[in-house]
């Protein structure tokens, strides 16, 4: 079916505003009488708070108020979990430890907020914070995952008597049997670390209570504005309708902006109510590193069992996952690890066990990939270990184990982050593999080019991995589509936008149904007064779930248009067409009515509206998938390693991706490329370096290394395969996290290949220094 708008690389409608500095971001908001907050944060990672003396700080001119946990009285409460516990999984053990908004009695990670200072500007607020005297009794610190699990002498939460945050086991088939029957069983231990989201805009929130209207307005860059509104209303004993959350333009989300239980989310609205003044808090970069959530370390003990032909019979993975000092985000990350380990491969017997551990470090919550990368990493590395031992080509071994196109929908037997069984909906895995191998010129490189380069002493290697990406999970999203009297269309949905181009891609979906140009479709996201049912932007679900709801609403509006136009034009519906903002009779272009006119007619100020007919040309629709749609792909790269300094230079990068139906290919490619940057960062540059005292040693961009343009490959060559998802009418799958998931495994495989397998990499991230150490082992 030829589509006019869907599938086209339409230029983004929102760009001119962003390009000229005319877009409103949270810190751009100025309100009359606005005050500024700053936090005093704990340096200690684990300590009892003995006393806090704010007397000197209060004396500074310009300081308005200072609050400790005690000052909030009964309002201080440990945040509810943002994600429910995994009771859907039989035998799951889970200790719920929500995030306290501000530390009371005890701090459990370095950076935990101790005091809120409110002043007439941020400079003075920071001066005051510097005058506060905190007396703390340092306690022993636990940061090592395995030690924290086994040893109860240092407890992050004494009341539960353990550092176990959760223990979840899942099994498909029987791994022990598979291992017994296998010709080859290989075991490895992996240490896999990730990092911060590194969005260019830090978090921020403005809470403004107007006592005269009894309404609370919150400007923020949150990924979940509706849950934030609901939590805020509940916290303050207000009606949902009294709280209005507006997400301004957001400078990147990538996960951590989904938190709704941090100090600012919970305390600033209360403070604003108390002072009857707007209060603004803008996070600085140091705070972002210390106290905004991130993804960190997992330790995996893996076993893979294969036949001598290289068919995988089983895989076992017992892993430790660091949840940090609290677990407000439940088990989302490790469950994603579990559902992504088998990846693109048919693994008949699979055992996975996660030991989630509390440590005295900052809380872990999803960062682009949300746990998927770890599962991908260990499987791909284990396959590499098997390929090495069995002397089978890396790509060939993968090919032999791919889930075939006729196997869909493919039930994995493992429950995922949405608490239902992970089912792979559609795909053509052999095709993405074939295409990626062709694009990188795998055969030619391995057989001809590489031997030549090696003869010259150059250490050039190739990597090739596959990946799956679970996307588009429930619970649901909704949207409202309205044709206005002007003939333009208004769309509102509950998710928010952090740069994914929703203003354009969502417009394209509506344009396809209503034949109104995308520039005349106005999309509003993340404004709870415009739409207030939904969950938020996460798990690459914006397009798939909200996009589908928008499509369904547009379809419903189209029906209303045709029904009313049929009456007005006295013509059967099947003889009508909508084109260029006008409804007309096919073959009789003179007989027509503009959409704007029709909209006016549908909403008379006098007269009669038929019973059962809604006024206006508007519809609201919801969509909740039975399970998430899964994208898939393959990544290949060629890189060179300097054999003396172990610096690495990427020469070529190929990624073939299947995300189902593509609404705007330009936006999809942009998402993939952005994810690759983070994947390269996670592979070789980025790491939140906590020492054994729980001190973060690199809380700045000087030492937390985010790849710049000079670290990226010269060109990212992208290929596409399209296997529409049967789960939604447009066949959509998400794509936001694709680039970040497989890149580290591919990067490390390529390094091993460059160094002719003289080393084996079993931990991430790598660095020149770490590579050197491996060569000396």
């Amino acid at each position: 079916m030829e589509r006019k708008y869907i599938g086209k690389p339409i230029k983004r409608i929102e760009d001119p505003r962003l390009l000229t500095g005319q877009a409103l971001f949270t810190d751009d908001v100025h309100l009359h009488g606005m005050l500024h907050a700053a936090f005093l944060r704990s340096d200690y990672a684990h300590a009892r708070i003995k006393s806090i003396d704010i007397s000197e700080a209060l004396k500074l001119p310009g300081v308005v108020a200072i609050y400790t946990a005690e000052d909030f009285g009964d309002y201080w409460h440990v945040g509810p979990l943002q994600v429910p516990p995994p009771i859907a999984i039989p035998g799951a053990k889970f200790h719920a430890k929500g995030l306290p908004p501000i530390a009371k009695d005890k701090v459990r990670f370095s950076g935990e907020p101790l005091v809120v200072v409110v002043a007439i500007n941020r400079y003075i607020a920071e001066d005051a914070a510097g005058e506060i005297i905190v007396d703390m009794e340092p306690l022993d610190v636990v940061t090592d995952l395995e030690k924290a699990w086994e040893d109860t002498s240092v407890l992050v939460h004494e009341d539960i008597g353990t550092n176990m945050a959760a223990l979840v086991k899942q099994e498909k088939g029987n791994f022990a049997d598979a291992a017994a029957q296998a010709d080859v069983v290989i075991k490895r231990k992996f240490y896999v670390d990730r990092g911060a989201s590194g969005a260019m805009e830090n978090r921020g929130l403005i809470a403004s209570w107007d006592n005269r209207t009894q309404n609370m307005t919150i400007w923020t860059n949150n990924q979940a504005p509706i849950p934030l509104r609901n939590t805020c209303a509940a916290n303050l004993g207000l009606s949902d309708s009294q709280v209005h959350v507006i997400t301004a333009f957001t400078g990147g989300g990538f996960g951590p902006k989904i938190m709704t239980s941090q100090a600012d989310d919970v305390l600033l609205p209360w403070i604003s109510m108390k002072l009857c003044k707007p209060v603004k808090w803008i996070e600085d970069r140091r705070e972002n590193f210390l106290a905004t959530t991130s993804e960190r370390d997992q330790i995996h003990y893996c076993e893979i069992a294969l036949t001598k032909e290289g068919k995988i019979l089983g895989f076992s993975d017992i892993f430790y996952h660091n949840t940090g000092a609290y677990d407000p985000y439940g088990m989302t990350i490790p469950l994603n690890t579990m559902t992504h380990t088998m990846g693109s491969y048919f693994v008949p017997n699979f055992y996975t066990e996660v030991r989630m551990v509390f440590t005295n470090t900052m809380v872990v919550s999803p960062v682009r990939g949300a746990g998927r990368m770890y599962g991908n990493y260990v499987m791909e590395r284990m396959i590499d270990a098997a390929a090495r031992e069995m002397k089978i080509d890396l790509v060939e071994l993968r090919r032999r184990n791919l889930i075939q196109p006729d196997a869909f929908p493919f039930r994995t037997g493992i429950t995922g982050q949405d608490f239902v069984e992970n089912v792979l909906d559609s795909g053509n895995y052999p095709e993405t593999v074939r295409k990626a191998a062709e694009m990188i010129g795998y055969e030619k490189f391995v057989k001809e080019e590489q031997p030549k380069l090696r003869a010259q002493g150059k250490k050039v290697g190739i990597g090739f991995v596959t990946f799956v990406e679970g996307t588009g999970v429930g619970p649901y999203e909704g949207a409202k589509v309205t044709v206005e009297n002007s003939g333009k269309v208004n769309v509102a949905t509950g998710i928010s936008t952090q740069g994914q181009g929703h203003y354009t891609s969502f417009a394209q979906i509506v344009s396809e149904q209503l034949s109104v140009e995308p520039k005349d479709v106005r999309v509003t996201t993340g404004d709870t007064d415009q739409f207030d049912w939904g969950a938020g932007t996460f798990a690459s679900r914006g397009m798939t779930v909200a996009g589908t709801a928008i499509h369904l609403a547009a379809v419903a509006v189209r029906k209303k248009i045709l029904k009313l136009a049929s009456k007005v034009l006295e013509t059967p519906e099947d003889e009508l067409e909508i084109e260029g903002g006008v409804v007309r009779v096919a073959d009789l272009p003179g007989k027509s009515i503009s959409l704007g006119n029709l909209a006016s007619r549908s909403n008379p100020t006098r007269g009669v509206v038929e019973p059962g007919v809604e006024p206006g040309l508007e519809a609201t629709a919801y969509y909740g998938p039975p399970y998430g749609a899964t994208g898939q792909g393959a990544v290949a790269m060629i890189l060179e390693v300097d054999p003396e300094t172990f610096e690495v230079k990427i020469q070529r990068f190929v990624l073939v991706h299947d995300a189902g139906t593509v609404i705007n290919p330009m936006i999809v490619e942009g998402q993939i490329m952005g994810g690759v940057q983070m994947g390269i960062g996670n592979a070789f540059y980025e790491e939140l370096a906590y020492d054994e005292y729980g001190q973060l040693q690199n809380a700045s961009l000087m030492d937390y290394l985010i790849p710049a343009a000079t670290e990226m490959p010269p060109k990212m060559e992208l290929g596409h395969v399209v296997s529409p998802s049967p789960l939604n009418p447009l066949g959509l799958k998400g794509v936001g996290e694709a680039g970040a998931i497989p890149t580290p495994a591919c990067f490390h495989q390529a390094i091993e290949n460059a160094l002719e397998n003289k080393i084996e990499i079993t931990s991430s991230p790598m660095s020149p220094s770490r590579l050197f150490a491996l060569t000396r082992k």
Partner: protein
Amino acid sequence: MKPAPFAYFAPTNVQEALDRLNQLGYDGKVLAGGQSLIPAMNFRMARPAALVDLNGVSELFYIKPAPQGGYLIGTMTRDVTVENHPEIKNKFNALNQAFYTWAHPQIRNRGTFGGALAHADPAGQLPGVAKALEFRMKISSKATGERWVDAKDFFAGPFTTVIDPSEMLTEVYMPDLGPHTGTSYQQVARTHGSQFQVAVVVKVVLDSGNRCQKANIAMLAVGEQPLLAEQASKLLAGQPLNDQNIDAAAHLVATKEIDPGTDIHATEQYRRHVAEVLVRRALKEALADAMQRGG
């Protein structure tokens, strides 16, 4: 991350600046490019009581040929001005290469040549270049007038030079290379423009037989401050710069002359290993540079 309060002075000429610094004593800190000082102030790691801003002292912005050869560079000359100076670009290979790796263009637009030296950041390229290329620094004060200090005596420790409170660096002398002289700058850094793990700056002077007459080997980030590898220099003096000798010198530097540490980016062992590699590469490149320049 906002800085703590400070008193601010913006003199318009050198005399005024020196008067002010004299008045402030220990409380006074010079503000040059600010590309190192202001981040430290924003983190509140540096909290000077008073800043004497030299950006309005136009007489400190210059590059002029020195009567004895080489260049006299006013302390406030922007890094980018030195970087783009066509003659300097052509002659001083090591300086060129150092600029290429030096932070980012925006930093070099504002940062100053003198500031980079006076700040004495152990993570800075310029102190190493200064030592290898034998810069001389002119330090001025109201009380004592002017004094010249050789680069090798100028740096006293991390972020510490021999400049006393009330004094300021006013001029840098960059001597000509002379015939048969070549330079090279080598480093490893994890990302382009970020902190290097090890850097080496070499100046090699050849005699008429193309043997090494003198080799200055400055090592960066492998000790408390940039150091000159004297033993390796002695080893090479009078010797041909063949592979064997270069290897021996590099090995000597790496094993005996440096004291690298371990941090989150690299281990001591890696730094030692890479130091050897970089000294070797720098000597080879400086040799080629010297041969190319001829007499």
